[in-house]
């Protein structure tokens, strides 16, 4: 046990652990998505490879790996190859910060929240470089959309997070979770005495998360009926596979962040059994419930129009999140002011 806790081994373990977690999630969330879509559409989904289609991700992976890596003529070959790497790195980095349980965190940092956001913002760059380097008109249109969309949604997201920071007073993710212990009514989602609009804040965060990860109904980057495959039109084989996996890895990061910030992370909803592996269990339960919602949403709604997406951000989400920010500030300072004067 002592040997396991030495720093190099710990780092190695977590490195392997995170890579495995991201890889397994990315692979099996694809299957879960297809199965979920099948369920909603009253069909079985992939069910031929392995028992109930469990080997489908493996089959897909082999197929993608066996494909020739094509760099189409006219592309910027270096950036074209670099983009898939760049798109996969941020979610891997971000997951290092996510506390899976009170004792399972790859790297605890007192500015963990900021870390997640700063590395999360690189993701856009990767999609954009990939699209630009493809030298494909559809891909470039898609890149332009990705940027405006991500820039537009980063603002309400950060506003929401600032609201939350005012409530928690810390950027350490583990500490944020610890503050939410003792039952689901203590989760930030239900802290209506701090800010009566807390559930709305969560909804805004969730919508922004969908938009930032380019998920339906905000999947402007891959609007297949308009832009063929968007930014990755020219990618084939594992290049495409990595983009595809990164999408799911980003969803995992986004949903775990939502879990940590609003749903009490590894805290048990009933106030007991929240340490150690129990905590990890609760965390994963909440995480996958959110991911399931993301899948459910994708297979229910049509895609939003691009300008109504921006309108939603600038005209609805930003004003509301600004209002909640002000409201939270006022609610927090009201007792102080009251005590001061009376």
């Amino acid at each position: 046990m002592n040997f396991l806790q030495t720093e190099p081994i710990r780092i190695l373990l977590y490195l392997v652990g995170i890579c495995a977690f991201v890889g397994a999630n990315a692979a099996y969330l694809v299957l879960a998505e297809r199965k979920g879509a099948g369920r909603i559409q009253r069909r079985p989904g992939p069910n031929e490879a392995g028992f109930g289609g469990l080997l489908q991700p493996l089959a897909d992976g082999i197929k993608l790996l066996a494909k020739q890596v094509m760099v189409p003529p006219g592309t910027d070959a270096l950036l074209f190859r670099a983009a898939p790497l760049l798109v996969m790195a941020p979610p891997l980095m971000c997951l290092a910060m996510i506390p899976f349980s009170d004792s399972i965190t790859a790297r605890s940092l007192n500015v963990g929240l900021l870390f997640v956001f700063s590395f999360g913002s690189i993701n856009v760059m990767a999609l954009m470089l990939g699209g630009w380097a493809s030298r494909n008109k559809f891909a470039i249109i898609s890149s332009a959309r990705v940027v405006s969309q991500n820039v537009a949604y980063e603002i309400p997201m950060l506003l929401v997070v600032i609201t939350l920071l005012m409530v928690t007073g810390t950027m350490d993710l583990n500490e944020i979770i610890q503050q939410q212990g003792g039952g689901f009514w203590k989760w930030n989602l239900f802290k209506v005495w701090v800010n009566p609009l807390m559930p709305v804040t969560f909804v805004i965060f969730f919508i922004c998360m969908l938009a930032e990860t380019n998920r339906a109904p905000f999947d402007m980057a891959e609007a297949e009926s308009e832009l063929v495959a968007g930014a990755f039109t020219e990618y084939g084989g594992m290049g495409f596979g990595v983009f595809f996996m990164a999408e799911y890895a980003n969803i995992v990061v986004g949903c775990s962040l939502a879990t940590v910030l609003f749903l009490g992370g590894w805290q048990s909803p009933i106030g007991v059994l929240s340490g150690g592996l129990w905590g990890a269990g609760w965390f994963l339960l909440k995480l996958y419930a959110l991911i399931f919602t993301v899948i459910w949403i994708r297979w229910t709604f049509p895609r939003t129009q691009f300008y109504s997406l921006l309108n939603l951000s600038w005209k609805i989400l930003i004003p509301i999140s600004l209002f909640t920010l002000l409201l939270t500030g006022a609610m927090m300072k009201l007792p102080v002011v009251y005590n001061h004067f009376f």
Partner: protein
Amino acid sequence: MIAQKDLIPVDNGGDPTKETFVLNLGPQHPAAHGVLRVLLTMDGEWIQRAEPVIGYIHRMHEKMGENRTWAKFLPNTSRIDYLSAMHYTHAFVGAVERAAKIEVPVRAEYARVITSELNRISSHMVWWGALLLDLGGFTPILYAFDDREKILDLLEALCGARLTYCYYRFGGLYNDVDDAFLKGTRDFVAHMKPRLKMYRELVTDNIILRKRLTGIGPLSADLCRRYGATGPVIRGAGVAYDVRRAEPYSVYPKLEFKIPTYPEADSMARYLVRMDEMEQSLFIIEQALDQIPTGPFIGKVPRVLKLPVGDTCYAVEAARGRFMVRIVSDGKEIPYRVKLRTPSFSNLSLYEEASKGMILPDALAMMGSLDLVIPDIDR
């Protein structure tokens, strides 16, 4: 063929700083529904000019009509617009019957109405699902196909085919409508009513869909008239033009139904017209099922059909609009000319004018609301 100068249109309005590029939408593109190609001259995401390039699936149906007998051309008619095969066969059969003065038994006419309206519903379901695919919603098409499958099963049991029915014959039908079919149709009508309510709740009332279609691609009644657009497109522009009422045929005069119109003339209006039409079709089917008499299903037809010299037209209200067949006979066994007036062709023609200045996804939403069937354009 497209000349080189058309491929690189310089359309910057005399302003050299305005950069445009040409986006080749199709012939292989997810939104092109078949092999339509649209040359888009774009300024960013704004469409400067959208030029449809057609002919990729041209099959010379009209020419084929000129070198085979009347009966041999019949199978072709269900392949022009494969989604509303019944209507197309109806128009051709009707034209020949009108020219040859063949009496059609009443039972056959009622059966034609029932099958035509079933076909209209199934065609609108494909449109509904495909439009939502264009808009990025994947699930509705599977729900629509689930219900459409019931129609196809009914029609398959009746005439043996699921798509290219070829069910009508000169003077009647290929098979009699049996009781199983009539009962199945009654069940289907009962099944479909709550489903239409579900469609409305899932999609029509959805805020995202409303935002995407309301106010998008207005096609004024004047524009529709100039390009000869018919069907739900012109009804969506507020004009109550329906061939079933304007040029009554078959037993439609005996049946009651409303012509749904919406004056907004946008994509949402066309959407709502089709949704209402499905309801009206169900209503028509119910009446026809109640009124259908017993009797023969095919009239007296000469073995070797020779039409008198003359020029005959027959129009029907197909799912996409007015489909008209004009046949010219010179008294021989083989037609002198078969002219097909297809609705999708006219409905597409206005696309270039209407899509000017639109943003790409909106233009595709509008194209979806036109309900194009590419073989119907190229025929």
